[in-house]
């Protein structure tokens, strides 16, 4: 791609030829060109008319000739010697006028609107609008519409940017949303019975720059300025969409996608978006537990670790007893590494077991190529990598269960982390129980945790930092958002202490140890910006 030089507000900037001017402006100068209908992931509409700039060109002698009218920066492609001024009097006046037009029929109901705090109208009004309106007529009212199972449309607030319509036509392919009628009375609508119900439906809520399209799951739940965000990776499937976890006071309120052009572009599916209910379910294992005289007692992590160490001390090589450690595809790469390291340090013949991977029937691919993976585990490839590195005795989970059923394995450590309770059916639990020592680290209470000798309260992905390797072999780091029930207790700590390492669990040190074997480095630079208005 050839490079061109564009002068923006007096500053010379280099950019690839043919890129949209609005993107080049955003990346290079601090002055913001506000917009609504433009979105880098969708086709150009140029209908909101807000992104006006004054443009022209410079000839060989440096003489600048500007076009007499304002131009929309979203529809212009950069060319060599282009001159752009974003904050001239004409363009500022134009923006004021557009903002005035956009607000004349707007209900201005910020106090009851979910979007307040992250609203395009609020932000651009404040920065580019005017404080008074000359409108003294009656406003147009529109009904609210339930346009999808989880998508609610507040018609009054809509500014007709048509991002949502373009999304359903270009990205998800369903074509459900459309513009009804024309002119002043136009509304967004769906054909009755054909709502926005596919697995990408939640993205239209992200796209909507105002509080018109809302997520029923988040409706009225939380003010956005109370939310803190953690950059994370979705643990729903092996695609590994980059997301942010928005939480407050230890409760997750919503997940939103982050832009990553190589993984998920600007989108995420609703399975992941709405699939975090289990994090706050009552069935979460909140404390570590230790079995004494057939009963399970809550225990501190130190006590649980000591009990576990004591029980596993019978499985050193000299004893000849077989020890199996399940490496879970739901766990982070660092945990998998520590689990395997500890297991083989304890007994170099310890069997490493492939945790079960649950698959849906098929991948689901949408029009523009977004694919939801059928593999519902975020880190199977991490598990494969660890197993490959360590080599030695290995078996599948079903084989483990059968072997335990035949009393061949006496010590078993199961790492779970699946978001549903009965991932290990009762018959399998009973077979595993044949072992003398059964230690479980899991997130949801189940027969497995009830029959174990020691239970470690595992952390879900949002409660810890770590990395997952996705189905494109990209190692993606994620940050902790909320705390575990017992602050600081997670699988990294458990394995760190089991391995007898001193001090608090050091994630960076583990990552360093891992970096020698990983085929891709896993640095903070991989993270990209959040989807914004």
């Amino acid at each position: 791609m050839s490079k061109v030089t564009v002068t923006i507000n007096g500053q010379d900037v280099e950019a690839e030829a043919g890129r949209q001017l609005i993107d080049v402006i955003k990346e290079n100068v601090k002055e913001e060109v506000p917009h609504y209908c433009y979105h880098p992931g969708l086709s150009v509409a140029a209908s909101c008319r807000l992104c006006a700039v004054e443009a022209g060109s410079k000839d060989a002698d440096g003489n600048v000739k500007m076009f007499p009218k304002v131009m929309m920066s979203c529809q212009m492609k950069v060319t060599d010697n282009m001159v752009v001024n974003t904050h001239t009097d004409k363009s500022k006046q134009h923006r004021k006028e557009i903002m005035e037009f956009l607000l004349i029929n707007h209900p201005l109901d910020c106090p009851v609107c979910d979007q307040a705090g992250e609203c395009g109208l609020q932000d651009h009004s404040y920065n580019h609008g005017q404080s008074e309106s000359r409108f003294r007529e009656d406003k147009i009212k529109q009904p609210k519409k339930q346009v999808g199972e989880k998508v609610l449309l507040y018609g009054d607030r809509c500014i007709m940017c048509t991002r949502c319509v373009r999304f359903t036509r270009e990205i998800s392919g369903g074509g459900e949303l459309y513009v009804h009628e024309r002119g002043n009375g136009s509304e967004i609508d769906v054909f009755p019975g054909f709502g926005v119900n596919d697995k990408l439906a939640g993205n239209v809520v992200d796209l909507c720059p105002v509080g018109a399209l809302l997520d029923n799951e988040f409706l009225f739940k939380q003010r956005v300025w109370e939310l803190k965000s953690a950059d994370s990776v979705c643990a729903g499937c092996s695609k590994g969409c980059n997301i942010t976890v928005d939480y407050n006071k230890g409760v997750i309120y919503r997940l939103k996608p982050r832009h990553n052009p190589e993984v998920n572009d600007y989108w995420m599916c609703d399975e992941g978006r709405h699939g975090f209910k289990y994090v706050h379910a009552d069935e979460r294992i909140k404390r570590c537990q230790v079995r004494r005289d057939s009963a399970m007692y809550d225990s501190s992590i130190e006590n649980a670790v000591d009990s576990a160490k004591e029980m596993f001390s019978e499985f050193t090589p000299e004893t000849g007893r077989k020890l199996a450690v399940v490496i879970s595809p739901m766990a982070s790469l660092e945990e998998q590494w520590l689990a395997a390291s500890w297991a083989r340090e304890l007994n170099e013949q310890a069997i490493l077991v492939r945790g079960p991977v649950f698959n849906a029937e098929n991948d689901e691919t949408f029009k523009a190529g977004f694919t939801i993976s059928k593999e519902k585990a975020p880190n199977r490839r991490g598990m494969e990598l660890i197993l490959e590195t360590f080599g030695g005795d290995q078996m599948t989970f079903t084989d483990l269960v059968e072997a335990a059923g035949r009393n061949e394995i006496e010590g078993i450590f199961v790492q779970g982390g699946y978001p549903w309770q009965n991932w290990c059916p009762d018959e399998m639990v009973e077979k595993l129980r044949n072992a003398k020592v059964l230690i479980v680290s899991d997130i949801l209470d189940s027969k497995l945790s009830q029959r174990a000798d020691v239970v470690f309260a595992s952390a879900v992905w949002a409660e810890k930092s770590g990395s997952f390797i996705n189905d494109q072999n990209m190692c993606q780091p994620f940050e902790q958002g909320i705390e575990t029930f017992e602050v600081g207790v997670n699988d990294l700590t458990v394995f760190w202490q089991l391995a007898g390492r001193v001090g608090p669990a050091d994630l960076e040190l583990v990552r360093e140890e891992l970096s020698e074997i990983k085929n891709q480095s896993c640095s903070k630079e991989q993270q990209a910006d959040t989807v914004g208005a």
Partner: protein
Amino acid sequence: MAWQIVDRLKGTPDSADKVVTDEMRQKIEAEFAKYPTKQAVLLTSLHMVQNKYKQISDQAIRELAEIHEISPGEVLDTLSFYDMYSREKLGKNLIGVCVSLSCDICGCKDLMKKVKDKLNIGPRETTEDGKFTLIPMECIGACEMAPAILMNEDLHKIESVEQLDDLIDKTA
């Protein structure tokens, strides 16, 4: 308005009786040959349905969506944009009174009043017996005949309200 939530999730049930008859379908398919895309024939198909049934129902939209290989939302997107297609059932006869400038300054308001007095219908209203709907239209391209009306498909220059009266009687 703003306090109502309209439910769009429940649709009308599919009907076994097809709106687009086999004969209509054949006509539509003959049109496909004239254009590179199937959607291009949509305006023509919608005219066919509108003329026959005086409305375009949910069932019609579903069938047209399938014939033209687009989503029902896209059919509605096109349909709702144009003045000549109606989701509500219109009367057997459409009295299209032009209300644009030339006809306005030449007395179209008297014609509207005549229709109101005679048939008791206002703009976009239909008589109880379903015989007439009054449609105010924007410039119908007959300004030299102002005030002009389209009675169904026929253009008329109205010289007096009595003439309109007779025309309505003759059409009924």
